[in-house]
C-alpha cells in the first residue's frame, strides 16, 4: 500500500504476531511464577495423629435456608458439629456441572478433609474425585453406584409419601390428588406413585395427577401447574423439588387446598394448608458415615439406607384436625409401624 513490498508486510505481520504471542506468554509465566511463589501451601492433615473430630466437607447445590433440600443437610451437619463429632466446612450454592463439582470435592480432599459429602446426585463427580484420593471418603445423595471409597445415601421419600397418601385419601373430597416434580427422576416418580397408592388404600377410586415442570426452581410455573391440577379437581397435593414445592404452597394458599411439604419442614409457610411435611432426617445417615470414617470402616463403601428412620412425616398442628378422619389417622399410624417392622413393603415404582 505504501511502497512496502508484500514480503515486508508479511514479515511485519509475522513479527508483531510473534511478539504479541511471546509477550502474552511471558506475562502468563510471570504471573504463574509470582503466584506460585506467593501462594499459601495447601494444608495437609497430620495423618499420624488420631483424629477425634472427623473433618467433613459438605457441598450444597442451594442455600442453607431454603426450607427444603439444602437446609435438611445443613441442619444435620450442624447438629453433628455441635455434638463435637465433626469439624464442618461447607460450600453453599455450589455449581452443578460435573467438572466443577469434581474439582471442588478434590479441593476439600486435598486439604485433608476426611469425608466429603456432595448433597445432590453427583455420582460422576464423586467417582472422578475419589479416583484421585483413594483414602478420602466420598458420598453423594440419592442412591446409585458404590465402589471403594464412594458411598451414597438413600432418600426413601416414597415410603413416607405412602403414609402421606393415606392421609390424603381421607382428606380429599373430590377423589383427585395432585403431584408436581421438577423432572421425572426415579426418586420423584416413586414418591408420586407411592402417594397415589397410599390414597387408594383409603379410597379405591382416587385419581392421581402429575406434572413435570422441567425446572427445579421455576416457582411461578410450578404454581400454575398446581393451579391447573386444582382446576382438574385435585384438592390434596404433594411435590418433589424445591421450586415445585414452593409453587405448590403458593397455589395451596390461593385456592385453600391441602398439601404436604418436601424434604424440609415447610408447615410454617402455609399454616392453614399444610397437612404435614415429609421431613428428610439426614442426621442418622450422616452420623453413620461419620462414624464409619472415624473408625476406618468407610471403605469398602456402602449404600447407606436407614429406611423410614431417615424420613418423618411431621404433622402440622395448625392444620384443622376435623379434616382428617380419626380412622384414617389411625390407619396411617398403623401402616407406619408396619413399614418400620418390614411387614408392609411400599412398592418402589421408578418409571
Amino acid at each position, binding site marked *: 500500500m505504501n511502497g512496502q513490498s508484500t514480503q515486508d508486510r508479511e514479515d511485519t505481520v509475522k513479527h508483531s504476531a510473534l511478539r504479541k504471542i511471546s509477550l502474552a506468554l511471558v506475562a502468563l509465566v510471570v504471573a504463574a511464577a509470582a503466584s506460585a511463589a506467593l501462594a499459601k501451601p495447601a494444608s495437609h492433615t497430620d495423618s499420624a495423629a488420631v483424629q477425634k473430630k472427623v473433618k467433613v466437607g459438605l457441598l450444597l447445590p442451594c442455600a442453607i435456608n431454603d426450607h427444603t433440600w439444602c437446609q435438611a443437610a445443613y441442619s444435620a451437619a450442624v447438629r453433628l458439629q455441635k455434638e463435637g463429632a465433626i469439624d464442618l466446612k461447607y460450600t453453599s450454592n455450589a455449581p452443578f456441572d460435573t467438572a466443577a463439582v469434581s474439582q471442588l470435592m478434590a479441593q476439600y480432599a486435598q486439604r485433608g478433609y476426611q469425608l466429603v459429602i456432595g448433597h445432590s446426585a453427583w455420582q460422576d463427580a464423586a467417582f472422578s474425585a475419589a479416583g484421585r484420593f483413594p483414602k478420602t471418603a466420598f458420598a453423594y445423595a440419592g442412591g446409585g453406584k458404590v465402589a471403594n471409597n464412594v458411598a451414597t445415601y438413600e432418600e426413601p421419600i416414597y415410603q413416607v409419601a405412602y403414609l402421606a397418601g393415606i392421609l390424603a385419601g381421607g382428606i380429599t373430597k373430590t377423589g383427585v390428588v395432585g403431584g408436581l416434580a421438577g423432572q421425572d427422576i426415579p426418586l420423584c416418580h416413586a414418591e408420586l406413585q407411592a402417594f397415589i397408592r397410599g390414597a387408594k388404600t383409603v379410597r379405591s377410586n382416587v385419581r392421581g395427577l402429575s406434572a413435570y415442570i422441567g425446572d427445579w426452581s421455576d416457582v411461578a410455573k410450578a404454581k400454575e401447574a398446581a*393451579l*391447573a391440577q386444582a*382446576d382438574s379437581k385435585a384438592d390434596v397435593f404433594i411435590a418433589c423439588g424445591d421450586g415445585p414445592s414452593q409453587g405448590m404452597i403458593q397455589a395451596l394458599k390461593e385456592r385453600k387446598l391441602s398439601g404436604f411439604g418436601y424434604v424440609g419442614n415447610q408447615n410454617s409457610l402455609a399454616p392453614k394448608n399444610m397437612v404435614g411435611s415429609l421431613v428428610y432426617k439426614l442426621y442418622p445417615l450422616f452420623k453413620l458415615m461419620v462414624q464409619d470414617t472415624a473408625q476406618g470402616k468407610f471403605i469398602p463403601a456402602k449404600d447407606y439406607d436407614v429406611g423410614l428412620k431417615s424420613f418423618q412425616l411431621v404433622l402440622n398442628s395448625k392444620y384443622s384436625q376435623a379434616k382428617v378422619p380419626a380412622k384414617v389417622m389411625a390407619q396411617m399410624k398403623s401402616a407406619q409401624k408396619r413399614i418400620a417392622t418390614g411387614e408392609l413393603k411400599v412398592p418402589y415404582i421408578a418409571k
Partner: protein
Amino acid sequence: MDWSAIFGVSLFAAGLRLAMPTALAAVGECFCERAGVLNLGLEGMMLAGAFASFVGADYADSAAVGVAAGIGAGVALGAVMAFLSVYLKTEQVINGIAVVIFAQGLTAFAYEKLYGQSGASPQITPLSNVRIPGLASIPWLGPVLFEQNVLFYVALALTLGVWVLLYRTRFGLSVRAVGEAPAAADAAAVHVDRVRWLALLVCGGMAGLGGAVLVVGQLSLFNVGITAGRGWVAIALVIFGRWNPLLVLGGALLFGLTDALQLRIQASSGGINASVPYELFQALPYLVTLAVMVAATVRSRRNAQPSALGVPFTKGVSQ
C-alpha cells in the same frame, strides 16, 4: 382427557398470569429496539428487578416500595447498558450478554450476603388482588380480566401507554426516526444518543417491573433462578410482534397461554402415564414462538425491523 377442564376460564386467567412479567419486558424491549438499540441484557434486568423488589418489600415491609425498587434496579441496569452501547458505542450484542452475566453474578452474591446466613427464609407481603365489583361478575370474561392483581392493570396500562407514546407523540416519532434513519433524525435536530438513552431507561424500568410483578405480585419469594429465561423469550417476542407493542403483547399472551395449556394437558392426562413425552410439552411454548417468529420474518421480507437496529450512531460518519 377432560377438555372442559383444560379449556376453561382458568386457562386464560393462568395464561395472563404467566404472560405478564414477560409481556412487560417484551414491550419495554420493543421500545428500545425501535430506537435502534438491541438490548440483550433483558434477562439480567428482570432478575435484578425481581431481587430488588424482594429486598425492598422485605426491608420496608411494603409491596409498593418493593415495586419501586424493582423498577429502580431495572433502570440502573438500563443505564449501564446505555453507557456501554450508546456512550461507548461498543458492540451491543456483547454488551447485553455482559449485562446478564453481571446481573446474575451480583444478584447471586447479594442474595447470599443478605439472606444466606439467616435461619428463616424471608417472607414478604404480596400485592393483593383487586376485584372490580360488577365487572368481575360477568361470566367468563369477569374472572379473567377483572379479578387480577393490581400490577396486571398497571401492565396493561403501560403497554397501551407505550403504544400511544410511540405512535401518537412527538417523542415517539423521534424514537422511531432514530431507529430507522438516525442520520436524518440528527439533521432534523433530534439528539440521537439522548433519545436512545431514554429508550433504554424505559426498557430497563419495564423489565425491572416485570421482575417485580413476578416476585411481589405473584410469588412473594425469591430464588436466583426465578426468572427462568423469561427475558430471552421476551426478546424473541419483539421480533415475533414485528416491533409493534400491541402485537408484542399479543405474542407474550400467546406464549403464556401455550405454557398454561401444556400444563393443563399434563394435569388432565395423568402426567405419569402420558404417552407423549413431557419434554415435548415443556418445549411447546419455545417451538411455537420460534415457528411464528420465523413465519413472521419470512412473510414480511421488506421487514419491520428498525433499519438502524444494533448500529451505534456517530455524528458525521455515514451509517
